[in-house]
């Protein structure tokens, strides 16, 4: 700043002037206050939409679900909304449909989770090699992920038709079929197999990518050391890779537990008359989520459906915890 320029007389409160004298011009005080307000409160405004919407449409319904479960709440008779106490839950305990659905859900869940995660692991370890067209393969395994379950289930429903389905045709060509074509929808084992196939098809690639991501961060020296000690490919996979990516394995186990126990679309659309939600003529493959839909929106008994969903919730929590524990052990975590 040259001294030749005389200090201009700042007009009081003028737009261009620096604060003259002692008193800050109003504008600055205002800006200051604005700044402090901005620093202190804007963050809350930024996170508010999430919490507001979550409270209203996420948390509140789950809590309110508890209230509904303790009441009579029928869609066909709105006057019947009295207090039911534990009646809905007591009914649950002796409801054959519920236990049958629970049995089915677990059966399908086991049939799908185990092969799904094992295969995903193998695919991931192959994808982890130096490959040509790597991206192409990775995108390829995601085809099922972007295909609507609704659409793929309908395809599988045709593939597993009794008389005209490709599945039976392939089996007969391979001479694996008996004298009669398999009626996939008529027994538990066969319908469970069909549903597990659908679930596996949908999620193997996705899980493989999760595993691949974790595998890429394993230090390479470890493999070298193992190879020097004479460990083969499979030994390396089970002894090094799996333990090293254990957190992701646990993550996928929990994820597929939550997903598997809520299985809905596949069992719904395997049925010829989808919206009846019966899961087979005798409930061969009716899952809990499907039963909740049937009780709530076909039998119009929302109170009882709410009780069922609480039951399902508890089961999911318990199974997830157990799963995490077991996976942790298997991976060699705690001895």
């Amino acid at each position, binding site marked *: 700043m040259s001294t030749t320029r005389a200090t201009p007389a700042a007009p009081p409160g003028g737009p261009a002037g620096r604060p003259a004298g002692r008193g800050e011009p109003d504008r600055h005080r205002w800006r200051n206050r604005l700044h402090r307000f901005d620093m202190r409160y804007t963050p809350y405004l930024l996170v508010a939409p999430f919490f507001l919407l979550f409270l209203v449409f996420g948390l509140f319904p789950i809590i309110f679900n508890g209230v509904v479960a303790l009441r009579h709440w029928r869609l066909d008779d709105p006057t019947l909304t009295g207090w039911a106490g534990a009646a809905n839950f007591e009914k649950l305990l002796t409801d054959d449909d519920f236990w049958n659905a629970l049995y089915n859900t677990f059966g399908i869940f086991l049939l799908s989770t185990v092969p799904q995660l094992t295969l995903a692991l193998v695919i991931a370890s192959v994808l982890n090699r130096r490959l040509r067209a790597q991206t192409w393969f990775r995108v390829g395994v995601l085809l099922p992920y972007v295909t609507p379950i609704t659409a793929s289930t*309908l395809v599988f429903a045709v593939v597993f038709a009794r008389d005209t389905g490709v599945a039976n045709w392939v089996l007969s060509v391979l001479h694996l079929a008996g004298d009669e074509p398999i009626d996939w929808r008529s027994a538990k084992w066969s319908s469970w197999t069909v549903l597990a196939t659908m679930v596996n098809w949908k999620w193997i690639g996705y899980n493989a990518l999760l595993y691949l991501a974790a595998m890429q961060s394993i230090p390479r020296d470890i493999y070298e050391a193992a190879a020097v000690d004479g460990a083969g490919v499979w030994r390396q996979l089970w002894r090094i890779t799996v333990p090293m990516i254990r957190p992701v394995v646990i993550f996928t186990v929990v994820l597929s537990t939550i997903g598997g126990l809520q299985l809905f679309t596949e069992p719904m659309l395997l049925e010829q008359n989808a919206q009846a939600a019966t899961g087979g003529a005798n409930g061969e493959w009716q899952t809990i989520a499907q039963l909740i839909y049937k009780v709530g929106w076909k039998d119009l008994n929302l109170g009882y459906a709410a009780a069922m969903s609480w039951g399902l919730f508890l089961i999911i929590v318990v199974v997830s915890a157990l799963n995490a524990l077991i996976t942790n052990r298997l991976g060699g975590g705690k001895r």
Partner: protein
Amino acid sequence: MSGTTITPQAPRRRNRRRGALSGRAPADTPGSVWNYLFLSLVILFSAFPLYWMLVIATSTDAALARIPPQVVPGDQLLTNLREVFSMQDVYFVQSLANSAIVSSVVTVAVLFFCSLAGFAFAKLRFKGRNALMVIVILTLTVPNQLGVVALYIVMGKIGWNGTLLAVIVPGLVSAFGVFYMRQFILEAVPDELVEAARIDGATTMRIYASVVLPAVRPALAVLGLLTFVGTWNDFQWPLITLNGTDYPTSMVALSDLASGNYVLYRRVLAGALVATIPLLIMLFIGGRQIVRGIMEGAIKS
């Protein structure tokens, strides 16, 4: 190193050293023929239902009843499509439009709200930040689906059941989105940049618009693709709240098509094909990003 000679130049990367005995890390092993064969089978298995959808959607009823089955696409696609689109009580055209509306609105909203919240959690200081972030992470593990009965009642009270609002509004934010954006912003936006912008007198929103948003574009692309695909494919809640109305989403319309005692699968799957194509296009355009997004999400969670 136990040798007496001191190598003046250490090997640049340890895994480059390969003696007669030393092995290779899997990531350095070139894929063998078997690997390619195996992966090709996996891709074939992945693509099979899509292909079969095409076969059925292009066939006649007679062709579908034949054994051995027809294994190549037929030439009846237009006929089947015309039938789907002209079914009065299924509103298929309307349902596609609805799916497009729902998915687009939800995607834009998720991108906006989640990047805002992610920014706040990653770069701003405020009381209760950590506690609130824990809540976000906890909500990731609670399946919202378990509240559907009550959600249906709530929507009934506000009068939204049967309208697209019932599907759109609960989807406007996502805990996964907040988490994902926060992780990305933590790394992609240097603190110094935020500080510098502050000193220049930028407001928080100004910083969001001119510093954060440009930096998170890749993450927005990934989250956008994942959200769009997820919303388009959602079935249970739309079925509950929109079933039997004139405003189904395409997934609900498909299940309508597939309900009844005499289902024409060529017709249903022609519809399914149409409802799947937008997603295949997305995978085609954004496949790389989707893969990267899923893999990044895995490491950090």
